């Protein structure tokens, strides 16, 4: 099968992490966060990690919505920690959102991109990041004040430290291709919206 060419001159270490170990190791206690998780892998794994918990709004469509939903949530709940977690494909679809988020810079918002370099849901085609696009540099260039790239389990500790500290941050978690943690979750978004609000607001 013909292959797309990698972008010339970009040298990155190979992605070796298994997301089924790396994501839970980085996030640790997902119940501590208000979470918006992008389709599809990150929504599956955050719902699996919380048993489809009410503090997670996991997308099943509207590709590109995740980071901006997390911004709206973070601005509306300044005393809560908000996690926007998504994949490389979803982030690339609305990558300008990183510029908007950098401008607003809510101190309670953390963004994590689980970058497997592939469109895992649609036949595992190479994504732009798998061919050399570096979203950590994009985030830095847009002005996100703290940016960390994680390639190894040893680097996860620094990611945990950043997640625990105040201030807007972007973490690029580079993982190899392969399945996400998965358990049954509600794919009825109005149910997910209502239960999220009921748990947070009592309404």
């Amino acid at each position, binding site marked *: 099968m013909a292959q797309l060419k990698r972008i010339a001159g970009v040298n990155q270490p190979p992605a070796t992490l298994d997301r089924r170990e790396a994501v839970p190791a980085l996030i640790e206690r997902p119940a501590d966060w*208000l979470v*918006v998780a992008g389709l599809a892998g990150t929504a599956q794994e955050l719902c699996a990690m919380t048993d489809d918990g009410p503090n997670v*709004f996991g*997308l099943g*469509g*509207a*590709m*590109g*919505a*995740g*980071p*901006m*939903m*997390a*911004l*709206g*949530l*973070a*601005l*509306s*709940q300044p005393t*809560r920690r908000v996690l926007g977690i998504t994949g490389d494909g979803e982030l690339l679809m*609305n990558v*300008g*959102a990183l*510029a*908007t988020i950098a*401008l*607003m810079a809510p101190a309670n918002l953390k963004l994590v991109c689980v970058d497997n370099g592939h469109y895992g849901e649609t036949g595992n085609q190479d994504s732009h990041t798998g061919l050399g696009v570096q979203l950590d540099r994009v985030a830095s260039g847009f002005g996100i004040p703290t940016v960390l790239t994680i390639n190894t389990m040893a680097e996860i500790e620094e990611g945990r430290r950043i997640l625990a500290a105040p201030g807007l941050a972007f973490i690029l978690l580079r993982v190899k291709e392969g399945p996400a943690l998965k358990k049954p979750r509600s794919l009825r*978004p*109005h149910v*997910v*919206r209502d239960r*999220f*609000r009921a748990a*947070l*607001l009592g*309404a």
Partner: protein
Amino acid sequence: MTTPDGPAWAHAMYDALRAQGVTQIAYVPDAGHRVMIDRSLADPDVHSIPLTTEEEGVALLAGADLGGARGVLLMQSSGVGNCINMLSLTAGSRFPFLTVVSMRGDFGEGNPWQFPMGRATQAVLEAMGVAVLRCDAPEDVMPTIQAACTMAWGSGEAVAVLLGQRLLGAKKF
């Protein structure tokens, strides 16, 4: 009445939205929204959020609703086309949604590039489940905004208020 600070109806619309509890005002800049944008930037109790593209605002307002806040998206009619698939988030999750759309490709338009999306604006919104209200005269604005707020936050509907070029004045070319 129009003063150097802009038309009175625009100030009244801002005040009405603030009285409804709106705290997030997101926009892609447009001359028709100048008063709303300037007021939001000067308001310490509002997040004034410039977007790189309009669909960001659809997602932002959904997140605001999850956190119990109210927001409004200001855009030009050309931006409505950018929002189409993102409005599936609003429809599927039954998020309340309010957008105020300044029209181009409308009454007296002098730029032919604006007509295709201007003509399609109402149909595109309605196709994605957004109710469309329209203002063509200053006296239309307040009752229409009040109705839209009731529909959005009373009934949980998605609503667009179109500001026609008969109201805004067509841009000169």
